[in-house]
């Protein structure tokens, strides 16, 4: 990760900017919305993802300490994903786990956890009835860095 940032430093013009966007290392809250009613179902917490996001934070800290980049500006925004059904969410999670997993062990760890949460969400969506909407939230860190 730090090596990649060194390469980015080389590819950037002197007055260039690096913009990093990555999620905050924390579980993602899951909610069911029906009209004014909001039910908090639980959190999606994939250990590998949280660990990856922590490593990203650490890499940014390291390149600052090494004097490669300085942070000019940073912030956090909310990114919400809306699903019409639990099945839709389950398919999306499965694709994300397969895409971002580093190895088979990581899939073996993450998939059952996501599947268990999807099953719980499915039950609650059925109980909520038609018109219910499923929302997964994520806080995302964005920063602008200047090469030194």
């Amino acid at each position, binding site marked *: *990760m730090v090596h*990649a*940032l060194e*390469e*980015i430093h*080389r*590819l*950037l*013009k*002197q*007055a*260039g*900017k*690096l*913009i*990093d*966007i*990555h*999620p905050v290392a924390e579980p993602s809250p899951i909610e069911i919305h029906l009209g004014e009613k909001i039910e908090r179902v639980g959190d999606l917490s994939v250990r590998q*993802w949280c660990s*990856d*996001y922590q*490593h*990203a934070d650490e*890499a*940014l800290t390291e390149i600052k300490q090494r004097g490669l980049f300085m942070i000019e*500006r940073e*912030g956090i*925004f*909310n*990114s*919400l*994903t*809306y*699903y*019409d*059904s639990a*099945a*839709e969410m389950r398919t*999306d999670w499965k694709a994300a786990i397969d*895409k*971002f997993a580093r190895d088979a062990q990581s899939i073996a760890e993450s998939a059952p956890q996501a599947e268990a949460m999807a099953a719980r969400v499915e039950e609650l969506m059925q109980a909520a009835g038609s018109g219910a909407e499923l929302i997964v939230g994520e806080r*995302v860190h*964005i*920063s*602008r860095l200047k090469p030194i």
Partner: protein
Amino acid sequence: MTIRTDPENNETRALLDMANFGGQHVLEIGCGDGRVTWLYADKAAHVTAIDPSAKLITLARQELPSHLQDHVEFHNATFEDFATASKPSAFDIVILSWSLC
């Protein structure tokens, strides 16, 4: 069935608030299917967007709007390979698009 990600456009606002893309040569690392690319590409002078997934790059190319075809190019490449083949000081802005992980 439609999955909607960030219909509130919080990411677009945050990104455009971070930099002025006008006239800039941009490298986006980890562009995936181009979801983030579409947020700023019409403002940039040129966008080079890379991703190691051939499947996602194919999707991004399919979705590339005609008005962006002249100044957005997608490459199926790892960053390591791309960087090795690239000249120094080539870009005004580099975006790590959910990819520093």
